[in-house]
């Protein structure tokens, strides 16, 4: 392939088409979080020893030091974000001066890069900074703000968590002004995507009131344009449904979990491989649902069809929740329409619009189970804390074993509604005996930055 310089607006447009921005297979996406969520347990014989350095096990038992003190292998998600950052900053800085494009096109491309940078920073905060609390954000350490495409930058400093969040909010806000209502393809940012993601950021910051208008606007726009719609599992997984047939190794063969190109439910699509993997740090080998998580599903919940009780070694699973997720090889970590409904529902619930929350919830649920089961029980629907908990559980039901839970664990740990949460992991040996690990709070809700980042930036303080 030829090499060249970026000159035209179209060149910059193609930089925003880099597949690394929306698709990754190895040690990336939320695959580290996938091992750290407390909705999963593990079976030792299938879980351990996949990677030579033992990092899987360290993520799973929430070890303090996970990466060996060398540059390789690089932490997956961090590497991915850093390697994309240069291109994003380049686009942000240069695209307005590119040739041949319309001013609108240039502004749109710049806005896509801004929103992508903000999303990226939010992912990094989710790993490497303390959960956001307004009271301490002005003193908590942030993630370094990287805004210039310059390989000669000598030193970065972390700044405060507040500064990092301010930058995220600023980028999203700037982007929303210039983004289109619908993108050319949903691997690219759109206005509802940026609004939805900024709404998520606000909600994770404990600011549902700021989040809700954005989420509402996003949902309204999506509904109007029809750019994203929900699959109705009641039909797609029924006899003759489009997800079928069911394959013994990967579940519903034609479901979106087995097809990275299926963008129907995506608002902005970012896919990572979360399935079984040999020789890698990540992958869902040996992961099973916890008994508690398994118990969250109603018997008619069609999402159970994405789970199997037969293990990869063709043995029946007899421990934990006795289920492993096999129907989702490709997990989504951009913004999915189901999450947008759940975020909206949560905001409404927290702002005491319980009816609104119930409506959003049921919009999703009726596409996941028969209508009779989809209704939120009245006792829950009329009780704010119970409804919020129900929404959190719905998040698990929708996204279990895909890395989403890690972010929720972090924010719930500082949520006054959820004080005193304890997070545990169980790992079962072949005989069924389990070892329990308990997450050491608050330190281990934050990953330590790899030493080489700290060493490269004199004065930078690592997380405790």
């Amino acid at each position: 392939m030829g090499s060249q310089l970026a000159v035209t607006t179209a060149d910059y447009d193609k930089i925003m088409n880099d597949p690394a921005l929306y698709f990754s297979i190895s040690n990336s996406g939320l695959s580290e979080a996938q091992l750290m969520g407390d909705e999963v347990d593990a079976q030792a014989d299938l879980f351990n020893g996949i990677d030579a350095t033992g990092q899987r096990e360290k993520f799973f038992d929430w070890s303090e030091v996970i990466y060996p003190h060398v540059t390789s292998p690089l932490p997956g998600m961090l590497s991915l974000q850093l390697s994309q950052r240069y291109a994003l900053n380049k686009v942000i800085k240069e695209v307005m001066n590119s040739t041949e494009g319309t001013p609108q096109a240039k502004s749109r491309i710049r806005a896509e890069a801004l929103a992508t940078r903000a999303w990226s920073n939010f992912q990094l905060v989710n790993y490497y900074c303390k959960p956001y609390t307004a009271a301490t954000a002005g003193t908590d350490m942030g993630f370094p703000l990287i805004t210039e495409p310059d390989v000669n930058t000598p030193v970065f400093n972390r700044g405060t968590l507040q500064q990092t969040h301010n930058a995220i909010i600023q980028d999203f806000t700037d982007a929303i002004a210039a983004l289109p209502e619908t993108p050319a393809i949903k691997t690219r940012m759109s206005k509802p995507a940026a609004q939805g993601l900024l709404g998520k950021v606000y909600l994770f910051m404990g600011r549902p009131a700021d989040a809700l208008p954005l989420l509402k606007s996003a949902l309204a726009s999506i509904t109007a344009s029809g750019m994203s719609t929900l699959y109705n599992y009641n039909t797609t997984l029924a006899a003759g449904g489009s997800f079928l047939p069911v394959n013994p190794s990967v579940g519903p063969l034609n479901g979106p979990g087995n097809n990275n190109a299926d963008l129907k439910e995506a608002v902005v699509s970012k896919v990572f491989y979360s399935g079984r993997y040999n020789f890698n740090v990540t992958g869902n080998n040996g992961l099973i649902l916890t008994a508690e998580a398994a118990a969250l599903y109603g018997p008619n919940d069609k999402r159970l069809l994405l789970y199997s009780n037969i293990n990869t070694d063709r043995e029946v699973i007899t421990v934990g929740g006795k289920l492993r997720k096999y129907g989702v090889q490709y997990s989504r970590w951009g913004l999915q329409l189901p999450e947008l409904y759940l975020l909206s529902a949560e905001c409404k619930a927290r702002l005491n619009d319980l009816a609104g929350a119930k409506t959003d919830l049921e919009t999703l649920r009726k596409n996941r189970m028969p209508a009779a089961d989809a209704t939120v029980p009245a006792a829950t629907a009329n009780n704010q804390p119970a409804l919020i908990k129900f929404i959190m559980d719905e998040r698990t039901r929708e996204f279990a074993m895909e890395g989403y839970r890690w972010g929720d664990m972090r924010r719930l740990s500082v949520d006054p509604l959820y004080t005193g949460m304890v997070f545990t992991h169980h790992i079962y040996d072949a005989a069924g005996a389990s070892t329990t690990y308990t997450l050491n709070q608050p330190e281990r809700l934050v990953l330590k930055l790899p030493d080489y980042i700290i060493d490269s930036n004199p004065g930078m303080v690592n997380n405790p």
Partner: protein
Amino acid sequence: MYNFYTNVICRQNRRFSKILLVMKLTTLIMVLAILQVSARSSAQKITFSQKKATVKQVFKEIKKQTGFDVFYLPEMFKADQTIDANFKDAPIKEIMDKVLIGQPLTYTIDENTIVINKKSISHIPEQKKDANSIRITGVVTDSTGTPLTGATVTVVPARNEATPASPDKEQPKISSASIFTDEKGVFSIDVSEGDMISISFIGYQTYIFTAKQKAFLKITLHPASTQLKEVIINTGYQLLSKERATGSFSKPDMAVIAKRGGTMDLIGRMEGLVPGLVLTFGDRSVSANNNGNGVTTRNSLIRGTSTILTAQNSAPLLVLNGVIVPDFGTLNLDDVADITVLKDAAALAIYGAQSANGVVVVTTKTGSKQLKPVISYSGYINFRGKPNLNYIPVLNSQQYIQTAKEIFSPSVNPYSDFLTNIAPHETILYNLDMGNISQAQANKSLDSLGSISNAGQIKNLFYRNAFTNNHTVSASGGGGFYSYYGSLGYTQEHNNSPGAVNNTYRVNLTQSFNPGDRVKISLNTSLQNLVTSSGSNLNVSNTYLPYQLFQDAKGNAINMPFMTGYEEGLRQTYEQQSGINLDYYPLNELNYTQSKNNLLAVNVTANGTVQLFKGLSFQGTYGYQKLPGTISSFTDGRSLALRKRILGFTAPAAAPGESPTYYIPATGGDYLTGNNDSRSWTVRNQLVYQTKTANGRDDFSFQLGQEVKEFYNYRTSNVVLGYDQALGTYAQIDYNTLNTNGVPGGSVIGNIVSLLGAPFNISKSLSRFNSYFALGSYTYNNKFSLDASIRQDQSSLFGSDVSTQSKPFWSAGGKWRMSNEAFMKSITWVNDLSLRATYGVTGNSPYNGAGTQSDVISALSGSLGQIAGDAFVIQNPSNRQLQWESTSNINLGLNFALLNNRISGSVDYYYRNSTGLLGTTPINPLTGFVSVLGNVGRITNKGLELGLTTENIRGKHFGWSTNFTFAYNKNKIISLTKPNLYSNVASYGVSTTLVPGLPIQSLFAYRYAGLDNLGDPQIMLHDGTITKKINAAKTEDLKYMGTLVPLFNGGLSNTVRYNRLSLTANIVYSLGNVMRRDVNQFYTGRLTNDGFRSGNIAPSFLDRWKNPGDEAFTDIPSYVAAGKINASRRNTAYYTLADINVVSASYAKLRDVTLSYTFAPQMLKSVGIQSLNIYGQATNFLIWTANKYHIDPEYQSLNSGFRGIPPFTHGYTLGLSFTL
């Protein structure tokens, strides 16, 4: 000897007399210009009075009083001819005039010799009968005037084009055409006009000339082993005589190069022959296929490493007939006429931005003028045998089984279908563990495995004897207007892989045209065709599972399904779900791949000179190279690799009874075709002005030129799947779906599938240089020489800013030839003594696209998951601070020749300061990149070089001469502008090689402090603490062990000659560097962790720590089954990378020893051969190493300590060359 002229007359033997009688005395000797006619006449005076003195008496008196010999033929004077001599202080001239007065004779005085000849041919009508037959008489001496007795005078009859001579007529002529000089060095022979006469004497250069007229010749032969003749240095831009050149040049001994048949790589053949040229070995040894032409070039360094880029960037620039070439692969080595290695700035700066690493200038043979066609053949066969597989020590089968039993740990590695690489012995152990078999059954099976060795089968089935065949036939000839040299070459490289074919065919033609006095044109055209084919390479070596045989007693291939990598149950499931057979017969695999390459190289170089005006001329050099080639390979669908890939693209049957879905064809194979077409051209135009001052002792020349070069590289490749060789059909593949989404729902093996790859690939690169240059030189009074050059380069190298490129490269140099000073004249034992000094700036530019001042983006299409269309990715981030490397060079040199040139040589001291070092430098990873190419620091190289040639014994029958080269290089990184902040950990530092204050390629190690009571290795930190804690060490806790690059290096060549037999021994040596030795690397996990091909381990594992207390006896860490424990409890690198495992890499090798015999021409004349030489050579005898572990540093990866398998033990060459 002083009166031999009388003997010429007296010693007329019968044959001589008879010949004389045949000739009419009146047909007198004709004149021929004598060699080296000198205008110098003698000032010697003679006083001599005698009446009726015979001519003989007069000449005798001349000899007596002046020492001058007079040569003449007896028939010139009548026996009774006398003169009345009455000379008083008369000059020789006066006497000679008097003696010859009235005679049809003339004479010449040359140094202390007077030669009398017939006055003029034109006045003497020749008799028809004898028109063709002439007599040549002469005396053969060495350069001191000592006659050479027994020199061979051979006549090569001219082919009569007009009337071809019948064989029987030709025959007698040949039989009378070879004689020897007598004890006075005199010969006389009858020949036909136009015949070629060669005068040869062992140890001297053969002199060949064409017989034109009758003559008396004085022939001086020059010793072959000393370079007394004028040495011409070819810089690629100008020709300089060695006497006046100020720069540092070396010329390797072409005789040694010609006979090193073990390699077809010219750089490789130069080992030890050029002071300061170091061939790198170990893991940086070769760069292959730089240009897509399949050529492998030995990596080399001239005067140390001045860059921290890859080996390719520190390699010398290669110049062929004045034009830069990527390698010498297109060259027939038998066509090489001359090699000059340029080493200092005065020589190099003219090459500008690519000059920092030295230049190797090669010129090829041209036709000699005024020669009848000479047909030559040279050829050899070089035999290398099979690789020395036993060089890497491994466990034998019995030890392997015993070890496997000892370390088997089913609790750590429980049996599951995710276990990969379960070898037969492990299956037995698991079966025993799971209770499927009894202990006795297990023992029996294991013992039986332990008694089998596959070493013999490996050696016989996977390797064959390697040899090389090389043949060149050449013809050269020409006349005043036109001359030519042409050759046909054929090389067959028969390598170690059974079935591989590698043939090279070469045609080369150099033509010179001289259409007039003012115009000279030469044209070199060469064509090379490389045709290769090969089968599968399974890389089976002695590290293979030692008991696993490949064929049974009946010769049938053995199935090894366990080598598919799948556990047996899983494998059967996959087979059943996919319908794809998963057996594996390694022996059958050999036939499943066939690759064919057909590469052509065309090289045309034209050089022209037009004299414009007094001293002013125009010179043009035009080079064009084109390397078109095609490659193709077919991989059969039956090969395991393809079957496994098909498996990855097969969806299992949706329901029982249905068929699996194959997303790529399950039949046929992969057919890959590729084309490459690189081309480059050079156009150089220059004006040259040369003048000599009136007294003839001053020289001035000035050159001004412009040069444009372009290098273009183009490659495409095309792959089709499911190709049916018989039908030529292939399958249509849905690349878009498979590459972007993979198999819908996942394949049989469940995993995400690997990418199919793009069916079509294309790559192009283009770089251009535009340069202006000037060269000037001035020589004053043959004593002082000055050289200067300047060059400015502009290059299209990607993204570079013109303002930073326009940095000129320049040089200046001076030389003082002390031996030409009057005060040195009296010191007769000094033949030559000159002092040289040069200074200049040379450059190094990164390879195309390596560094950039703007972000370089590249297109991405059809990659896995790429659903949004074509994209650009950042290929190289910009580094706006990037500049070319520049190196300033100081060179001080001394040339000397002593004791009648028996000792000659040169000494050079250099200091090179390279700034703006280009290097991959670690950068702050938060910028988005972990490293970029930047200007990172400064390196200095200083060194001393010595080239010495001595002629220890110079005798007629016996001679001994020695060539010695020595080079010392001290390399030091002065600064690195970006120190590795994040690398301040030992685990990084122990593998890094760049530390300011130390040489490039430094080697570091942990300070070993023995094992603890768990058998875990401990190290000592710099504060004396002993620890085994992981990550405890910082870089300051590491010990600097030395450099990987030799400090001292060179060669010693001795040639002993006894008459026609000569024996040459070349020793190469390399001293002062260090290496890691190979130690056991296996301390955890299963024995088959690394698979079956490389799964065997070092026998030192047997001596590991096993029980507490063993730490007193062994340094080899314990084995820990669980990888997690091994990784968390200890760091085995504390042992494997410890100081105790670093040893000296110094060694000396007898690189080759050659016995050569040159036949006496009289033995050859009956078969019509003019000269014939045969030789035999044996190579690669390690005569000394400084390590006690029997490590040959040439095959060691010096930094990692891994042993490479020597491709052969010793090479043997038999060679033959003859001239018709």
